[in-house]
């Protein structure tokens, strides 16, 4: 019930309502009789018409009329009598719609009659004009218009013109803008006559939408259309490889030597084999500018002298079952070097020379790319390659982290090389002057609007335009300084104050951009590098840590720039989600303490990081929230992405209500954590710990205490 005032009925109103109810009840009981006895004579049909005029929502009465039509049509063959029978149906629908134009049943009945093909479509357009004039946002009307237009084979061009008329009559018509976006994308996609070149069409659309935006900047109708135009302007179909691990030109030293002191040597290319390389081999990770599918041994060629690497199995790093992902990984098998004379292997990875990698937009274009890296193998015979990984406990307190100039000096050249991604050399962007000019023009226009009115969506649009321009200008390069970052960060700060209702939306955007800034070049990234000194020599090669703590981050991004990180400190931020972290396939130690993670299901990305051993999620909000906002973003029986494998009986020995902890079990079961810090969460209690220790055999420390 909508828009009816809350007030007690006056006695006469109340009497009228009861009177009306009695009439309706009488009609209804007669109706049941004719319906259940399949009576379709004129008298009976008139009765149902009367009922529907009183209450168009009685769906059963529409069904009854359809049965009536079908039954009575059987005895008719002359087209005129068929038409007049159907015209009567249209009349009943029309009077029902005048009673309630939102009646689904009435609109459907009309479609059902029209499909029989005896009725005038012209009349339908006239009727629609009336309805859309009375309420230009009536979505039933718009749906019906699309239906009759299709029935009549009205061209998209003509329907587009109708939306132009509606928009010119009143800019504040989201329904018309919506229909325009649908029609125009059809016309653009099939390159209809008059709709090429695309640039010309889009420029005209910008002109049109400006009129709406400048007429009433606070009206949302045009803004969403503008956002769509912006997407059409900057969206690039070509798939690019934007990052990889190992990076191009890297000389990676693999050793199983635990004693060699490599602390002050360049940390990046030296990895101790059993600190991160799994039994499967060396991880090879590809990161694309958009989610793709079709990465396999035939679309990606890996040339090396290493044996048994012909049919590599590539896996999408994604928490869903789409088979598409930004990042893909495989394991390169390491030969038994004791039998091999060759100690250095050059590996060449090339892709894009054949079709098969398809973007989520369905595009087959991929820029051909090739990169090379070298593996130096230094295995010491005396060491046992099968030794269990070291079982040091990490203590994340600040005193354990130091920064050293010597360390950083040595480190910078490595980083530099890491950032010089030459993998897309030769890529000629499809970005033209038109793109840049259009964006610059829009930016100038919105700066001018903002100089007059303080409008939040205009400000947000300006921020989006500036970011788009930066992306367009740096197209193809992974780490190119963006020129507008500072200004956009300020715009988001303004928006937080200006539109407090949506402040956390702007904070999330701010946080993403901050991540961009921090990771954009060696200098800013190096500021966040620390050296973990507690680690004993056996872990010496993993001794540097990226600390992005205390930055008020509420969201993370740009992880393609951090694929090589093994130790990451994200503590003391405002993260409630770690979406995207699954790309960090070398991660061993992760600190998420003092954030706003409210459910175990939010840790789903970590399930994909097989190298992770130590996780600190202490002092979060797990267990205090009744609503789990990541319940459907993780694999579980609820979303039919995973069979239920934690039934209550299995855990009868542990005195806990397992249904309450299914999330924790689903998430942690596949991980091989040795250390978990969970204190400071409401969920933490003795029973829960017992359950964890029982279910996670690899676990050695919980909250700093040895449990095995």
């Amino acid at each position, binding site marked *: 019930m*909508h*828009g009816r*005032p*809350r007030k007690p009925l006056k006695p006469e109103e*109340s009497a009228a*309502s009861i009177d009306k*109810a009695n009439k*309706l009840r009488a009609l*209804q009981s007669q109706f049941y009789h004719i319906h259940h006895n399949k009576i379709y004579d004129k008298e009976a049909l008139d009765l149902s018409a009367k009922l529907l005029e009183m209450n168009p*929502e009685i769906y*059963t009465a529409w*069904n009854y009329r359809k049965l009536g039509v079908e039954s009575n049509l059987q005895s008719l063959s002359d087209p005129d009598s068929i038409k007049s029978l159907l015209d009567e149906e249209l009349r009943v629908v029309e009077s029902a719609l005048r009673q309630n134009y939102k009646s*689904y049943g009435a609109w*459907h009945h009309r479609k*059902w009659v029209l499909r029989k093909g005896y009725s005038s479509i012209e009349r339908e357009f006239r009727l629609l004009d009336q309805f859309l004039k009375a309420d230009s*946002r009536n*979505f039933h009307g*718009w*749906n019906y218009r699309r239906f009759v237009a299709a029935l009549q084979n009205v061209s998209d061009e003509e329907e587009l013109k109708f939306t132009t008329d509606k928009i010119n009559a009143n800019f*504040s018509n*989201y*329904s018309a803008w*919506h229909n325009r976006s*649908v029609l125009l994308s059809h016309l653009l996609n099939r390159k209809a006559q008059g709709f090429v070149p695309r640039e010309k069409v889009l420029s005209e659309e910008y002109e049109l939408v400006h*009129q709406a935006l*400048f*007429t*009433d900047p606070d009206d*949302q109708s045009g803004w969403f259309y503008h956002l*769509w135009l912006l*997407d059409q302007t900057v969206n690039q179909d070509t798939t690019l490889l934007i990052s990889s691990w190992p990076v191009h030109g890297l000389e990676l030293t693999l050793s199983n030597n635990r004693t060699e002191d490599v602390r002050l040597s360049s940390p990046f290319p030296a990895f101790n084999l059993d600190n991160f390389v799994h039994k499967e081999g060396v991880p090879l990770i590809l990161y694309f500018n958009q989610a793709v599918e079709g990465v396999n041994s035939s679309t990606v060629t890996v040339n090396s002298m290493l044996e048994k690497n012909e049919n590599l199995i590539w896996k999408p790093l*994604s928490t*869903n*079952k*789409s088979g598409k992902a930004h990042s893909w990984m495989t394991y390169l098998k390491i030969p038994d070097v004791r039998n091999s004379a060759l100690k250095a292997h050059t590996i060449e990875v090339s892709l894009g020379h054949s079709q098969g990698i398809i973007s989520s937009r369905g595009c087959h274009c991929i820029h051909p790319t090739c990169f090379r890296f070298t593996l130096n193998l230094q295995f010491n015979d005396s060491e046992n390659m099968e030794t269990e990984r070291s079982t040091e406990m990490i203590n994340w307190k600040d005193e354990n982290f130091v920064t050293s100039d010597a360390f950083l000096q040595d480190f910078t050249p490595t980083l530099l090389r890491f950032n010089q991604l030459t993998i897309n050399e030769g890529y000629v962007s499809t970005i033209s002057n038109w793109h840049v000019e259009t964006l610059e023009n829009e930016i100038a226009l919105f700066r001018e609007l903002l100089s*007059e*009115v303080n409008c939040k969506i205009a400000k947000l649009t300006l921020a989006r335009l500036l970011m788009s321009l930066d992306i367009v200008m740096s197209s193809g390069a992974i780490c190119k300084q963006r020129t507008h970052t500072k200004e956009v960060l300020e715009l988001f700060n303004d928006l937080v104050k200006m539109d*407090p*209702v*949506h402040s956390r*939306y702007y904070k*999330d955007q701010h946080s993403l951009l901050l991540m961009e800034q921090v990771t954009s070049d060696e200098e800013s990234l190096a500021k966040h590098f620390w050296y973990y000194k507690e680690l004993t020599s056996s872990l010496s090669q993993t001794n540097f840590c990226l600390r992005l703590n205390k930055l008020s981050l509420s969201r993370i991004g740009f992880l393609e720039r951090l694929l090589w990180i093994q130790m990451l400190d994200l503590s003391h931020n405002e993260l409630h*989600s770690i979406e995207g972290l699954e790309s960090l396939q070398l991660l061993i130690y992760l600190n998420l303490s003092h954030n706003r993670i409210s459910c175990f299901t939010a840790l789903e990305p970590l399930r994909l990081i097989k190298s992770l051993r130590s996780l600190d999620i202490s002092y979060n909000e797990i267990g205090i929230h*009744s*609503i789990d*906002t990541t*319940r*459907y*973003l993780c694999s*579980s*029986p*609820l*979303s*039919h*992405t995973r069979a*239920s494998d*934690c*039934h*209550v009986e299995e855990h009868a020995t542990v005195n806990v209500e397992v249904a309450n902890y*299914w999330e924790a079990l689903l998430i942690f079961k596949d991980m091989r954590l040795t250390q978990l810090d969970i204190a400071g969460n409401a969920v933490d209690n003795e029973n829960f710990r017992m359950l964890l220790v029982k279910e996670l055999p690899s676990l050695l420390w919980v909250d700093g205490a040895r449990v095995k």
Partner: protein
Amino acid sequence: MREVGQARPAKVMALLIIIKPKIVDPAFPTYIFRLKPKEEGIVYFSFIGYFTEQTTSLFLQVPKSRNQTSGLGMGELEIDKHVQYVLAVEKKKDDFESLVMEHLRMNGAYWGLTTLDILQKLGSVDQDAVVSWVMSCQHDCGGFSGNVGHDPHVLFTLSAVQILALFDRLDVLDIDKVSSCIAGLQNEDGSFSGDIWGEIDTRFSYCAICCLAILHRLDRINVEKAVNYIVSCKNLDGGFGCTPGGESHAGQIFCCVGALAITGSLHHVDKDLLGWWLCERQVKAGGLNGRPEKLPDVCYSWWVLSSLTIIDRVHWIDKDKLAKFILDCQDKENGGISDRPDDAVDVFHTYFGVAGLSLLEYPGLKAIDPAYALPVDVVNKIFFGR
């Protein structure tokens, strides 16, 4: 944009700024202009209007007031009154407003009973009576109707199954029969009809998918095709419509996002784009509308909130303000919640208000699952129970 001179409308000194020539007929140019106050603090809104070279007088259009009245102070949820209201609605049959709802009593029962369960008062209902009434609405085909004497429809079949799930009485169903009936509604293109009469709508896709999932019979339909059809109804604003090309609407978005959640297909949703569209449904007063430039309404508290919760973007709205809006819509005397403050209450808005408050983690309420639209404990029992 250029300044063309000064004007003195409404005794306020203002600059007349031409913003954009709007040329419909070149012989008769029209301009859109804005009057910019010269001194700050004199006018608090800008004038917007059109004039043509032939026009001597200006027609000014004053935008809607920016500060909507915020209503009374934050109240508490009148749990007992709402329980009494829901229990009374069931019995009230004599007035016209109750009678026009009679054909969808199955929906009404689901709204009322779920409300009671969230309020932790489901025990005050005669379970056996409800179950036997529900079963009396089942037809030979396996589907359920909105009431005794009406025709079966998937909208009511879902409500019937949800009611039985609330009472943990799914055992009374011939599950294969119900599932066959629903599976029979799937069309070649993956869409679902509501009944034998062929109306197609993504609402029915949700009903079918949710219902079959509760019955553990999703394998009876072609899930891939069902998902592809829903995806074909996705719009360029990130939302979903009832059929391909249909305008995005919060109710429809709930159905599509819910169905995608249940089938593990949320990767088809652009969470940031849709999340922004959805969070912009919150108006300054705190309430949520269902489409741009529409009035706020309590029922969208459910549709927008559940969708935002499923895609983990619910923090983008101001939860306290929304809770206050819902609480302001209570009838504190007689119980029940209405669409907007001071409108007449009904069981539909009472349910959506209470379910919304549950998603907002209002104290003392059972948590509701955003996709199955049933209390979390009921859903967990279905999927993690024996």
